């Protein structure tokens, strides 16, 4: 694995908003088929880093390499086109819309009738049925609104969507923060399944225990600095918590 360029490499990323330095010279990488836990306290810069990677805003300085190539990601759509899918905590799905409309939002299959293009409703429903039964969610119809799904089911559907559309990198923003214990386990299982299928995953969370059970490596951010990076065999969950709790100290070589 070493020697090979990782899937994502972010080098020397800095970003400030006005006078606030949100990120300072952060290096970050995720290997192929690896679950990377991105952890740190509130305001550590986790979401800023992810928003740069997903094209929500550009970095002030720094470079991003994806599959070994230097890339400029200028919008969420460009990130998606590269194969970077993000599942945001509250923004995974739109509750009032049907499951199948959500699943295909922005990428709906169409049938052509002359110059007109209509949604290929049959294909949409068929695919959604398949994915739902794979995940193990029972609903009467793909036309059901997302509002009838539980929080865990929503996260799973959003992850299933990323897998279905051939994502290479899946970014999960606090996927378990609002879930019950049982639902959390389901989602964690599903994350491992996505990894088995060849995806790399960035798992952002406050809950070290959740991420610890599935991650291969951890990156710890604190006040916009990267303070540590560990493989799982180098560190225990308690040690990670301790590092976050003790706060940032100037790195000593």
């Amino acid at each position, binding site marked *: 694995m070493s020697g090979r360029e990782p899937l994502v490499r972010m080098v020397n990323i800095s970003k400030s908003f006005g006078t606030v330095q949100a990120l300072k010279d952060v290096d970050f990488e995720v290997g192929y088929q690896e679950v990377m836990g991105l952890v740190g306290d509130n305001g550590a810069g986790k979401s800023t880093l992810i928003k740069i990677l997903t094209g929500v805003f550009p970095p002030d300085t720094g470079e991003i390499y994806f599959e070994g190539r230097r890339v400029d990601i200028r919008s*969420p759509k460009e990130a998606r086109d590269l194969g970077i899918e993000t599942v945001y905590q509250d923004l*995974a799905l*739109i*509750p*009032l819309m049907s499951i199948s409309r959500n699943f295909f*939002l922005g990428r709906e299959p169409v049938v052509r009738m002359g110059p007109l*293009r*209509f949604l290929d409703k049959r294909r949409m429903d068929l695919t959604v049925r398949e994915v739902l039964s794979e995940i193990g969610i029972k609903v009467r119809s793909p*036309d*059901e609104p997302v509002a009838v799904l539980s929080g865990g089911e929503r996260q799973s559907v959003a992850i299933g969507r990323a897998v279905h559309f051939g994502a290479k990198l899946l970014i999960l923003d606090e996927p378990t923060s609002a879930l019950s214990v049982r639902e959390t386990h389901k989602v964690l299982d599903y994350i491992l399944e996505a990894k088995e299928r060849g995806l790399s995953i960035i798992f952002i969370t406050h809950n070290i225990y959740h991420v610890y059970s599935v991650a291969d490596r951890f990156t710890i951010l604190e006040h916009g600095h990267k303070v540590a990076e560990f493989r799982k065999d180098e560190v225990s969950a308690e040690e990670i918590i301790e590092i976050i709790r003790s706060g940032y100290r100037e790195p000593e070589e």
Partner: protein
Amino acid sequence: MGQKTAAGRVKSPPRFFHLFALWLRQHPEFGAFAGTVIVFIGFSFTATRFLTADSMASILTVAAELGIVSAGITFLMISGEFDLSVGSVLGVAAMIFAMTSKAGWPHLAGWVLALLASAGIGLLNGIIVTRTRIPSFITTLGAMMFWRGILLAVTGGFPISYFPREMPLMFFALNGRFAGQFRTSALWFLGIMLLLNLVLVRTRYGNAVYATGGNREAARVLGVATDKVKLINFVISAVLAGLAGCIQFSRFLSVDPMRGLGLELEAIAAAVIGGTLLTGGAGNLIGTLFGVLLVGMVRSGLVQAGAPAYWYQAFVGLIVVVAVIVNTNLRRWALK
């Protein structure tokens, strides 16, 4: 085995309600449909001439002009924005159509100019809302007052009439009579409703409209160009208001600068009766169709039933509140 059947039989009523709830989840227009049926039956008994073709035609005439405006409003509301300026836009468009007709322009040219002006106003509304992020309620409230003021200033407050010796073809196409008292405006209305509903339910753009109103931020991170959607919908809303203005002018052959005053609220009321959410993300045009028919029936039914016309507003107000209460409860129940 016998026990099983017995249990099955006991469970059948809740099962029916369950299926109904599932159906209801995808049909927010049910409340308006039920209301329309109830009011229809009510007037059939109380208003003597209600069930005649002429009476149906007069309901459709009212419903068509309101409905074309309300269709645009519905589209815009589903994407999460308001347009209070449609009444003024209707007035401006009607006035442009009247002035150009009077000045001897070809009617088609005057009509196109009126629609282009409406589109311009809609575009301006959209640009202001998407660029500044000021709530559309405020932006279009300003637009409503501004364009009404312009209308009054330009005309000096006087109405403009245009009485051609014979009915121009354009006027017939917009609002001519056929089959007795029926008017072509009803065809515009039904055509627009069906077309917009097709766009909403069966196209990618429709999906983007729902997503934009359902959760703008989520739609954006999923790659929907939410600002573009809103901009387009502001233009649709204004153009349809302008069209309704031209249609109305073709009927009255006269327009005063207060034309369309208060119409915006009636159009929003019809959409809301039809199950469109004020907060966006849900609704459809079938609901608005019934909402508009309901309002139209109340307007002509009350008069026919012998009630003074003043009761109309009170009645519509009552219907709006009752409809929203019913719609909200139905929605809540269906999702349980």
